[in-house]
């Protein structure tokens, strides 16, 4: 490009100068020729005059020396052709003499294209006429050429000198630019060495060089910064790559653990790229090709239609997630969850289905189990209530609806507090709360009230639910309606109280013992007769108040009867 710049500098000037030179060499010789011929004509005319005067002088003064010298001068001219004395005698002309001696006819023609003629009249006493002098055009042309030759030669030399000067100037201008180009090219390949700053002059190119030098320094600084950045980035990339590899390994491991894998199916070609997991589940060799048609044959008859529909009539651009049961070659059934996206490939020629498939056989098994348990929970006579971690009810069974009298919509979203009433023991409520706050099981009896105002007792079993991360995600409460038992128990307690009142008022000493003979209760007569208070009786054995013989003789039968009575009561 800079060589072109050099040419652009010197070529126009050279061409211009060449044109000027050519024009000069065409114009100047022509003018020179015109001037020369004009000059020659004048010279010839003057010469003719001089010769005429010489003739006149010779004849009048007898002095031929001047004529002789004039003729010598005339004949010494390079272009001299002839000179003649033509005399007129009446109307005729004749050649008196000539030099050199030529035929009269040739001299008198005077129209020859070869000569330039000039003449000058003379007159003497004896005769008069004119001097005719002729110069050769050819000789004049030769003389003119000889005259112009130095001009041609000079202009040629000047042209070449000018051309060389232009080229030298152009090269002088472009040399520093070439250096700058070399430097910038080096900078492009990050070679920042050998910047000849001192070589640049104090002109515009020097300023340009200084600017490029500054730019180079900036680039060096930027490069160093970039290098640092690059090193940091490289380190970061390595770190991230390592993390990514680790994540990939983890993902693969997770996929393996979750029985998850990628697949791609080409609907148009009927082929697919399936993971090792599928081959393993189908119990076929991975080296065998598995077409979509072949894959369909493994699908359970109940899912065959939906699977075939997915493959045979894919809806482009849609996402899907389905679960299919497949039968392996050995007849074992397993479940696959297949999700993916149906779209065209990059060339928009083939319809592709790609996504994830997961072995969900175990989950399906659990779901079946849960389904069974759910049936149990649905159909048990006990209340089953499931709440979330915030103790909001998310599920209840039919028995709960029957016992509480509320509809499912009224219950879902509420807390179990909705079942409590003013009769519910606050201590029981606090007890339940404390236990649940400590993520512990709760087993207690609680009095609730139904929607229609009926009080009922429940034997409450609350179990906190934890996920695999041991995070609490809810509670399940199984509640047994113990209202009849509770009512019977209360009635029994009332009767026992009545009995104890009777015994307390009896004059006989009456007490109750446990199986080991520890005192559980004594009546007032007992305490009065033995002179003890309630504090004296605490954790005391009956044997401490009787000797051994007395115990055997008097107390044992009573005790036995009391014990038997007590057993009957409880």
């Amino acid at each position: 490009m800079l060589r072109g710049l050099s040419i652009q500098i010197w070529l126009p000037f050279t061409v211009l100068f060449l044109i000027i030179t050519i024009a000069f060499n065409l114009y100047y010789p022509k003018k020179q020729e015109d001037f020369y011929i004009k000059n020659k004509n004048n010279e010839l005319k003057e010469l003719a005059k001089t010769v005429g005067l010489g003739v006149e002088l010779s004849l009048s003064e007898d002095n031929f020396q001047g004529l002789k010298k004039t003729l010598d001068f005339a004949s010494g001219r390079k272009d001299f052709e002839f000179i003649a004395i033509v005399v007129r005698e009446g109307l005729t002309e004749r050649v008196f003499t000539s030099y050199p001696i030529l035929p009269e006819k040739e001299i008198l023609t005077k129209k020859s294209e070869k000569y330039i003629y000039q003449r000058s009249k003379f007159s003497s006493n004896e005769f008069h006429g004119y001097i005719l002098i002729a110069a050769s055009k050819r000789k004049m042309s030769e003389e003119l050429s000889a005259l112009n030759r130095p001009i041609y030669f000079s202009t040629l030399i000047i042209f070449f000198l000018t051309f060389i000067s232009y080229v030298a100037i152009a090269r002088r201008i472009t040399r520093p630019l070439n250096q700058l180009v070399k430097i910038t090219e080096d900078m492009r390949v990050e070679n920042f060495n050998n910047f000849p700053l001192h070589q640049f002059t104090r002109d515009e190119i020097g300023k340009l060089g200084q600017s490029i030098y500054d730019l180079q320094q900036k680039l060096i600084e930027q490069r160093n910064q970039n290098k640092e950045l690059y090193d940091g980035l490289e380190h970061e990339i390595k770190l991230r790559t390592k993390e990514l590899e680790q994540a990939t390994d983890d993902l693969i491991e997770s996929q393996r653990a979750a029985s998850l894998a990628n697949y791609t199916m080409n609907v148009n070609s009927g082929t697919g790229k399936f993971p090792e997991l599928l081959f393993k589940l189908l119990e076929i060799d991975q080296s065998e090709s598995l077409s979509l048609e072949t894959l369909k044959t493994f699908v359970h008859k109940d899912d065959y239609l939906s699977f075939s529909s997915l493959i045979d009539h894919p809806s482009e651009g849609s996402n899907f997630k389905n679960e299919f049961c497949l039968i392996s070659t050995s007849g074992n059934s397993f479940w696959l969850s297949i999700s993916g996206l149906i779209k065209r490939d990059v060339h928009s020629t083939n319809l592709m289905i790609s996504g994830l498939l997961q072995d969900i056989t175990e989950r399906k098994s659990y779901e079946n189990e849960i389904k069974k348990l759910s049936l149990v929970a649905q159909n048990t006579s006990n209340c089953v209530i499931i709440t979330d971690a915030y103790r909001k009810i998310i599920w209840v069974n039919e028995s709960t609806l029957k016992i509480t009298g509320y509809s499912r919509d009224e219950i879902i979203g509420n807390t179990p507090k909705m079942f409590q009433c003013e009769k519910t023991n606050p201590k029981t409520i606090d007890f339940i709360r404390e236990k649940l706050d400590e993520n512990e099981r709760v087993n207690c009896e609680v009095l609730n009230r139904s929607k229609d105002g009926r009080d009922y007792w429940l034997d409450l079993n609350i179990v906190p639910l934890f996920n695999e991360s041991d995070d609490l995600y809810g509670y399940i409460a199984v509640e047994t309606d113990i209202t009849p038992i509770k009512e019977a128990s209360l009635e029994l307690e009332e009767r026992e109280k009545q009995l104890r009142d009777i015994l307390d008022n009896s004059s006989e000493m009456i007490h109750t013992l446990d199986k080991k003979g520890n005192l559980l209760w004594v009546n007032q007569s007992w305490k009065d007769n033995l002179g003890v208070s309630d504090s004296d009786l605490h954790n005391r054995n009956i044997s401490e108040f009787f000797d051994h013989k007395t115990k055997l003789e008097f107390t044992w039968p009573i005790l036995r009867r009391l014990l038997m009575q007590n057993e009957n009561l409880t």
Partner: protein
Amino acid sequence: MKIRSLLFISLLTLLSQSTIAQNGDMNNLVIIGNNIGTVSLKKTTLINVLKGRLDSWNNNVTVKIVLPSQKNESAALTAKVFYGTTVKGMQKFWLSLVFQGRANPPIFLDTDEEIIIFVQKNPGSIGVIHEGVDYPKSLKINIIN
């Protein structure tokens, strides 16, 4: 035939009279010369010299012709004797000769004295003067018929 004979006789008469006249006039003229390598010349040689047909003498000295100008009384005689014409004719003769570059032009001088002095001063010169003029006898050139 008679007319032809008459014309022929008339021509011969004119020629003979001219020759007689030339010889007669020749006696009135003196030829002088300086260092021309000889003291005598044949008349024909003299005429040849005076008509510019000789460039140098036998001693290799250049011939310089000195003639009386038209102002000189001897001019007409000289023209008549040596050129067989008038003074103007002699001038035309020399004009033609000089113009053609065939000879160096003669020196025309107005008086015999000038001619004598010129001849004395210029070796190789030969001049024509009128008889009766004093001149150094050493310059005289004898003419042999």
